[in-house]
């Protein structure tokens, strides 16, 4: 046996480069131990350890950048993992997302009789797996990381097990997720089989390794099995993103899942899917751009139209967020297509993801704060006169929705603008036209929501507003709630007006 080769591989297992992931797993284990030691579940302690532990990690990661933000491309773990400025930024993205999910989770769990520690434990583990997912450079690691994320989400979606909605959502997500994982795995196996076959010229040693696979596919772009395999892999990823032929699970799952989990799915899971798709189409499948560009463009058009048109008549706010999330996935897919020809579009995608994160968590935060008791059946009518009852919530909601709709001077506007410019440079004029139509449609339903919340709406006694049962008045906001909501709104504004942030992102 060739032991030297194994030793060489073992020497490239640099665990020190995975410290953020290891920290998150350790924090999760610490929480689980705490729960065992303090038998009476001490809320204060658990919530605080989970939240401040993540804040500490964010600070530590920030401090580590004083030596310079990582630049260049570094392959680790025998080629399984690759670290670039993009993956480093996405690490921060996921950590930020997880922090916000944990914060929403504290609000959500406080009002319900559900297990508490486990929510944070799973959130932390899923975040660590998301970080590994975007750094993976080989299909084995990609699949294991993706499965870890998905299994975590199966549990989180069904977390409110006393609610029928949540269990139904969990079951639907489980079945759809298993199907998509099956498609993805089948595709990977086909690619492995064909690229490792010694009968074909240019067979590679490790067919699962992205650069090696790219080499093989460049030599055989028309092989039937390569086409079938890559199509199946792309379908599996499209499921996670929620692109159109595979979007059917989104409204029900988003509605049924606990609000913090809906936000987690909408932001982090979708972002991971987009980045993985980006890695695949610009990496191993780059030689297939002859058909991936038209394919993903068509999917993007359908996704944008589907998301926006189905969101128009919705009254349930969680379904609106789910369906409009499909539309956002469509804009991001357009960015992915643009990134295949225009280099700086990658930065535009990441910038868009950050604006989407801030705006979505603002809106989901308001939703979580308003729904102390029930969760899944929040209608637009419940937001009537919010500005009078809770001015801060209404303001945060307006900023978030306006940013999602892409209204200047907020971050969402700049995000859409750079994405559209990238698409224009890539020459995707049809796609661009459909996106603009989509954005116009989205303004209608986002502002319908704002109108409910901010402007006085006249209703007859038998109007829709009186028919829905009123939600209990939300608890008074704590200092943490105010900080979070104001912070998200201010950051959304900063992304919109401070050009240096954008310049930094476009260098990615």
């Amino acid at each position, binding site marked *: *046996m*060739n*032991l030297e*080769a*194994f*030793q060489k*591989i*073992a020497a490239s*297992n640099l665990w020190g480069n*995975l410290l953020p992931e290891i920290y998150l797993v350790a924090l999760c284990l610490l929480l*689980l131990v705490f729960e065992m030691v303090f038998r*009476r579940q*001490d*809320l*204060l302690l658990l*919530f605080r350890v989970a939240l401040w532990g993540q804040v500490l990690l964010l600070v530590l990661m920030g401090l580590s950048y004083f030596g310079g933000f990582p630049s260049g491309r570094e392959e680790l*773990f*025998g080629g*399984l*993992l690759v670290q670039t400025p993009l993956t480093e930024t996405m690490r921060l993205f996921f950590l930020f997302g997880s922090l916000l999910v944990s914060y929403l989770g*504290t609000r959500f769990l*406080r*009002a319900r*009789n559900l*297990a508490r520690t*486990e929510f944070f*434990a*799973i959130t932390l*583990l*899923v975040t*660590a*797996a998301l970080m*590994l997912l975007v750094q993976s450079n080989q299909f*084995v*690691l990609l699949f*294991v*990381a993706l*499965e*870890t994320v998905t*299994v*975590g989400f*199966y*549990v989180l979606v*069904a*977390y409110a*097990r006393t609610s029928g909605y949540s269990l139904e959502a969990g079951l639907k997500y489980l079945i759809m997720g298993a199907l998509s994982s099956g498609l993805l795995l089948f595709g990977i196996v086909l690619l492995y089989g064909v690229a*490792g*076959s*010694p*009968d074909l010229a240019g067979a590679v*040693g*490790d*067919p699962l390794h992205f650069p090696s696979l790219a080499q093989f596919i460049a030599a055989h772009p028309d*092989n*039937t*099995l390569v086409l*079938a395999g890559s199509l199946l892999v792309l379908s599996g990823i499209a499921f996670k993103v929620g692109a159109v032929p595979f979007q059917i699970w989104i409204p029900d799952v988003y509605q049924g899942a606990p609000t913090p989990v809906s936000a987690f799915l909408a932001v982090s899971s979708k972002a991971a899917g987009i980045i993985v798709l980006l890695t695949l189409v610009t990496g191993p499948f780059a030689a297939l751009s002859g058909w991936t560009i038209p394919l993903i463009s068509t999917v993007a058009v359908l996704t944008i139209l589907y998301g926006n048109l189905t969101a128009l008549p919705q009254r349930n706010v969680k379904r609106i967020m789910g369906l409009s999330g499909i539309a956002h996935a469509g804009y991001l897919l357009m960015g992915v297509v643009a990134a295949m020809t225009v280099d700086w579009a990658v930065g535009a995608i990441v910038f868009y993801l950050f604006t989407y994160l801030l705006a979505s968590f603002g809106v989901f935060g308001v939703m979580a704060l308003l729904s102390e008791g029930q969760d899944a059946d929040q209608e637009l009518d419940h937001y009537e006169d919010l500005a009078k009852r809770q001015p801060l919530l209404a303001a945060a909601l307006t900023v978030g929705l306006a940013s999602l709709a892409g209204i200047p001077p907020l971050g969402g506007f700049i995000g859409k603008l750079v994405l559209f410019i990238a698409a224009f440079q890539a020459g995707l004029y049809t796609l661009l036209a459909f996106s603009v139509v989509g954005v116009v449609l989205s303004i209608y339903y986002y502002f319908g929501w704002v109108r409910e919340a901010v402007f006085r709406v006249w209703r007859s006694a038998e109007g829709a507003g009186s028919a829905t049962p009123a939600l209990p008045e939300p608890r008074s906001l*704590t*200092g*943490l709630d105010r900080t979070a909501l104001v912070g998200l709104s201010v950051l959304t504004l900063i992304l919109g007006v401070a050009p240096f942030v954008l310049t930094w992102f476009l260098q990615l």
Partner: protein
Amino acid sequence: MDIFFILFALLTVVPAFLMVVTPNPVAGAVFLILSFIGMACLFVLLEAFFLAVLQILVYAGAIMVLFLFIIMLLDVREVEKLRPNTVTAAAAGVSLLLLVLGLIAVLAGDGLSGQLLSALPAVPDYPAADEPLGLAQKVKAYGYGLFTKYMLPFQLTGILLLIAMIGVIVLSKKRAAEEGAESAGADS
């Protein structure tokens, strides 16, 4: 070799089909075991002995015992026949037709003729000796691969299992009512 392949392939496919159509869950589980055994035989034909042993030990052994336990515990005798509606049936028929056509297209093309498959040597993707390995050595090679190159996914699988464990507990365990609810309001 060919006759064995056909035999074992039939042993894999026929019980798998029977498993889907049988109304009796215990019979279904037994058919599934048969199908797994057929698959293990196919692995033997491919000279992947270690995989064949694992297939029997893990799938036909541990996992199926678990399935049977659950069936026994739930005490399911017969499931009532599902009547698929016409749209579903038609969609399934069309999908099957497309799948068969696709397979024929692939087989007729450059892809998977039987000869190509049989000519494939079982080369693992990590560096190994040139000569074919014996079973014990093969297991050792798996071990080396697992603990050097695939160390990270291996560890990550541990995390996956941890999530699954936590998840099972969260979703199935009954919580003592109102525990910790008093302290809920105290936090700020």
